[in-house]
């Protein structure tokens, strides 16, 4: 069984009816637990008139009120530090983490107990095993750990599954590239943005990443890990397969992973999570093939039961049968597509940064880019994509600029995009989550209207 394709063959291939029975049973027990132990949940459920005994079928999940991020933050503000969400005393916790705060918002604080913390690495282990990580691998984390939870669970998962695990905090990108080459690393883990940065620095150092022993690149933290053009570029430069995963601090770990069959999306770990897809801003449930907001219920972290949490992530669920791997876990086609609150309305057209990135990354001459939103004197919104070219690609610009402008317009109902060139090294690089959208729009009253 040690060469099994599955981390947990029994459950990963469980018939859907049994998987759903398991979900219902776990949901009932978790809700009972949360209602009994968390003053926050008890108050919330009582106010909504919901009783745990009303959960007779999975459809009854719709009776449970949603948890919104803002109300969680408000709860933590009302009852510092963690709110009355905890089901056990703070002294039972062994880990503190918080959200990354890349959006500038107040970070959300979470605690984990001993079993919760091991469960977090267990979810990563399931995903890493599915992509082919084995005890013989040498796994390199091109990431600096801290109070943000990113990749911590993945690090412990690699120890758990027996791989040689290398942390690389506090190093330069140059140092990391050299270590990847010198230490015979087979698997690199990083955000998609930072994978691209490693590629850039390797190129500057004259290191051909295809000649290293890396055969797997595993990404997390940004939607780009499932963008086909990004994956193609990474797989080409590294001579390796690339996988997307996604998680969130609120649940402590990943809830989706890409298996080695690379179905064009990520499987949902459905024995540990219930993932609903709802129409954004409403409670209408959407079916396979419809894009909507994911709402997660996690069975893992009992310390802070997360039941029907509105994530703001945009996803499209398709059936498990779209993958040949044999798992009965459904799939998010294209992983996390973006965030509902990332969407910008430009002259009446919806623009998602991830959709712009998907088009920009089709052009391998572009090294880095930035989306800038401004308001012209006539109050009309303008969208500009600034592009930094790779060394030696200067000659491509005259054709690339109009082509990219046309493709962006074609992908956005004819919306006009300005495409400008940025100087070498002018645009920012990122290790954690990239912030490539700069919104400079301000409401200025034009002179003639005063």
């Amino acid at each position, binding site marked *: 069984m040690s060469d099994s394709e599955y981390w*947990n063959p*029994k*459950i990963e291939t469980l018939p859907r009816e*049994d998987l759903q*029975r*398991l979900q219902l*049973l*776990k949901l009932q*027990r978790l809700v009972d*637990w949360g209602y009994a132990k968390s003053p926050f949940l008890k108050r919330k459920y009582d106010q909504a008139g919901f009783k745990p005994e009303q959960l007779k079928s999975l459809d009854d999940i719709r009776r449970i009120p949603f948890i919104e991020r803002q109300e969680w933050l408000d709860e933590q503000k009302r009852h510092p530090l963690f709110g009355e969400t905890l*089901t*056990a*005393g703070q002294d*039972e916790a062994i880990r503190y983490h918080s959200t990354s705060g890349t959006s500038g918002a107040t970070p959300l604080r979470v605690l984990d*107990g*001993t*079993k919760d*913390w*091991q*469960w977090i690495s*267990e979810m990563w282990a399931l995903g890493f095993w599915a992509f082919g990580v084995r005890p013989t691998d040498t796994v390199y984390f091109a990431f600096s750990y801290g109070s943000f939870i990113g990749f911590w669970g993945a690090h412990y998962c690699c120890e758990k599954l027996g791989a040689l695990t290398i942390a690389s905090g506090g190093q330069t990108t140059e140092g990391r590239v050299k270590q990847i080459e010198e230490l015979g690393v087979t698997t690199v883990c990083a955000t998609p943005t930072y994978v691209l940065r490693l590629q850039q620095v390797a190129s500057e150092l004259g290191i051909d990443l295809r000649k290293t022993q890396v055969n797997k690149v595993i990404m997390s933290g940004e939607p780009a890990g499932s963008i086909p053009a990004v994956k193609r570029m990474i797989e080409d430069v590294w001579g390796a397969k690339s996988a997307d995963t996604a998680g969130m601090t609120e649940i402590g770990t990943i809830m989706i992973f890409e298996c080695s069959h690379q179905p064009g999306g990520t499987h949902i770990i459905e*024995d540990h999570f219930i993932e609903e897809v709802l129409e954004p801003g409403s409670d209408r449930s959407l079916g396979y093939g419809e894009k909507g907001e994911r709402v997660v219920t996690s*069975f893992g972290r*009992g*310390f802070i039961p997360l039941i029907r949490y509105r994530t703001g992530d945009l996803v499209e669920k398709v059936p498990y049968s779209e993958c040949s791997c044999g798992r009965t876990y459904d799939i998010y086609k294209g992983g996390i597509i973006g965030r509902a609150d990332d969407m910008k309305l430009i002259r009446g057209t919806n623009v998602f940064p991830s959709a712009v990135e998907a088009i920009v990354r089709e052009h391998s001459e572009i090294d880095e880019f930035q989306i800038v939103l401004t308001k012209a004197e006539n109050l009309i919104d303008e969208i500009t994509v600034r592009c930094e070219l790779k060394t030696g690609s200067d000659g491509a610009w005259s054709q690339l600029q109009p082509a990219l402008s046309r493709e962006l317009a074609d992908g956005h109902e004819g919306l006009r995009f300005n495409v400008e060139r940025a100087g070498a090294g002018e645009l920012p690089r990122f290790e954690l989550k990239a912030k490539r959208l700069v919104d400079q729009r301000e409401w200025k009253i034009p002179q003639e209207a005063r």
Partner: protein
Amino acid sequence: MAVDVLGRTLNGQEEELMRLYDGAKALLAKSEIPPCVRRNVGVALAALWNATNDLGLQFEQLYDLGV
């Protein structure tokens, strides 16, 4: 006969696993055990919780045992 959370009979390997899990719980429930035992068995119990939970053999919380 022991069953999993879906009501299915456990196989021999699963029964063995549940014996280990229940044994670790019973040990941690004792009051007079030295710290080196409590903390190491706690970590072991957390690992056993994950293995048994993965297989659908149990789904419960262990915070009252400090795990």
